């Protein structure tokens, strides 16, 4: 059995060499279903990168193959990854919006000799599951830690934490709690609400009753966020002076038109704002807007995808188009570049991205659109989540 596998592997890598003219990259993400918007952003980021840097690296042509996993489904994700590796002969796997989908694929990487570039999935532990995983997005620990300091700077002592009850929510809560307590504040109460919550009025009432000066919240972007922010306004918490802190998922750009005035003044920390002021970002936003069609739909997964493609292009360059996962991953360890989000670097130890985290405030521009205005920078933030897990 083993001999057959080795022979087949050799055949695959030989095949890779013989067909070095086309390098296939498999993208697994949510392209339909409730998270279709995020998948669309993956595609926009990838298209933007290829529009700006061409679809060839050296003499090799890069071909993208998309596969859809509409909602977290590790079994389907794994089946598709296997199909991509064996049948389509992809040299790189990328995409991955959800943690379980990425987790399911990590055991395949060594045997398939394929590096995996994660464009979103934000649980710290994924990078430890295989030496061939590189991540160009963020972790909840990374984006939720700085906001604790911001809250302290605003003179807040008592905070109530409200998160959706699933992995990322729990991560956000733990990160915030750790940082806020370390900075001398108290988290008076921490509640986790079921993901399916539609009506947030009772939660708002609880926040009021808790006597906290501010609320820290994390919910997945989309309909729940809208309901939550609206309830925050309509139940008079804003008027009562209870401040609102959150990681940037809550005010992702594609939700801002729906949130409208209700979101004004909310403080979030995140790795990327579409309004980031730099020539790199201008070029990116222009290309990505063209790729996505409707510029209002552009959001953070696009920049994860854009930088993911940058990493993949560098890998292809380093391996000269040959299939060699180890060499490819080694080549991008410590790789630093100017991303649309600001200066970034792949941490050689964890293979996770080190990046600036920005404090932003939702503001209204002159033409009536809303944007995340960056007002403070926390430079070169790594992932505190890995250290916390050990």
């Amino acid at each position: 059995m083993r001999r057959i596998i080795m022979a087949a592997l050799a055949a695959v890598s030989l095949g890779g060499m013989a067909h070095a003219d086309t390098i296939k990259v498999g993208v697994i993400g949510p392209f339909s279903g409730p998270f279709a918007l995020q998948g669309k952003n993956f595609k926009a980021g990838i298209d933007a990168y290829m529009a700006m840097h061409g679809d060839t690296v050296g003499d090799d042509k890069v071909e993208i193959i998309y596969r859809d996993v509409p909602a977290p489904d590790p079994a389907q994700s794994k089946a598709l990854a296997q199909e991509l590796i064996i049948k389509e002969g992809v040299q790189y796997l990328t995409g991955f919006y959800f943690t379980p989908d990425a987790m399911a694929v990590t055991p395949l990487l060594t045997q398939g000799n394929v590096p995996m570039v994660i464009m979103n999935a934000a649980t710290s532990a994924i990078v430890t599951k295989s030496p061939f995983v590189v991540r160009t997005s963020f972790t909840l620990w990374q984006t939720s830690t700085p906001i604790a300091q911001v809250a302290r700077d605003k003179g807040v002592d008592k905070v109530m934490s409200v998160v959706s009850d699933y992995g990322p929510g729990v991560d956000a809560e733990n990160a915030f709690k750790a940082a806020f307590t370390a900075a001398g504040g108290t988290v008076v109460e921490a509640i986790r609400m079921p993901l399916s919550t539609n009506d947030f009025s009772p939660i708002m009432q609880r926040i009021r009753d808790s006597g906290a000066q501010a609320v820290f919240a994390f919910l997945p972007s989309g309909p729940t966020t809208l309901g939550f922010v609206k309830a925050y306004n309509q139940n008079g918490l804003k008027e009562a002076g209870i401040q609102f802190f959150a990681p940037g998922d809550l005010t992702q750009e594609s939700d801002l038109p729906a949130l409208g005035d209700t979101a004004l003044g909310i403080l979030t920390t995140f790795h990327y704002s579409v309004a980031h002021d730099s020539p790199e970002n201008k070029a990116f936003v222009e290309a990505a807007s063209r790729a996505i069609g409707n510029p209002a739909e552009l959001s953070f997964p696009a920049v994860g995808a854009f930088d993911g493609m940058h990493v993949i292009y560098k890998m292809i360059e380093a391996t000269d188009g040959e299939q060699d996962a180890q060499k490819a991953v080694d080549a991008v360890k410590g790789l630093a570049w100017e991303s649309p989000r600001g200066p970034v670097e792949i941490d050689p130890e964890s293979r996770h991205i080190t990046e600036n985290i920005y404090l932003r405030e939702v503001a209204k521009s002159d033409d009536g659109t809303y944007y995340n205005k960056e007002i403070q920078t926390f430079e070169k933030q790594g992932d505190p989540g890995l250290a916390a897990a050990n």
Partner: protein
Amino acid sequence: MAALMNENAIAGKPARVRLAGSDLLGVAIVIAAAIAGYFLFPNNLALLTRIISIALLVLSLDLVTGYCGVATLGHAALYGAGAYAAGMAAVHFGITDPLAMMAVGILAGTAAGLLSGVIVLRAHGLPQLVLSIAIVHLFHEAANKASSWTGGSDGLASIAPDPLLGLFEFDLWSRTAYVFGVVLLLVVLIVLRLVVRSPFGMLCRGIKEDPIRIRAMGASVHGTIMRMYAISGAVAGVGGALNAISTQVVGLDSLSFTLSAEALVMLVLGGTGSLYGALIGTVSFLWFEDIVSAANPFHWLTIVGALLILVVLFAPRGLYGTASAFLERRQEARR
């Protein structure tokens, strides 16, 4: 096939021989299809394994819905229980032998089946549907809450099953997982053929048609369906454990309402009340989904929707049900 079987049962002994023959034929067709799948799609074995795993869930659903007339949109609770039990046995208790994991999955599936049976049978019709929905949500929420055991929404990762029988590793190509799955499916299929044809199986059918009359005959409606629920749980447990072993990650999706609803769709698509209908429904739905979603990952849902509508319009008894009814009519016309 269902109608044919009834007819044979009435006709008595000579028919039984023919029936055994048709059984062998069915099993032979499944074996042939499995071998063909192995050689025609050697690069898609992971998909085929997933189809087998889901097919076991749909078969299990058919036992209670198709044979006993119990309406349920919460059958994934049984499947997920099997998957999580097998996964947790491997991760937390070091039970990494695939056969032992399978046994754990079957036990957990049976237990979950009995539990949901007790609750679901408290009502009929729509309220029954709601009970089943409540159960699958409770299971889902429990797994989400117990994240130190189940991994919560991140999924239960690092399940590392030993080589099967100490010889065959679960590899990138999924060959072992596929063969393992095919063998399991065949065993389940043969056992279920015996079960549904037994007096017990006939009693279940009777209950579906007319529970009052069965009760008047002196049989226990509740007890009979509970037994079927236990068998159904065991079958779903096999599917779930197979999923845990072959994927090596168990996610909350395996306990979801969505999976339950999809299973029901596949069952109705194939045709309720016959084991082959369940198989054909699963294979055609997942295979179709795979093709259209690869062809257009962005807008394939519309095409799947259209397929379901077309099936209702042109094959109202499901693919298999309508086909077998058609064949039967042809046969009768020839007579």
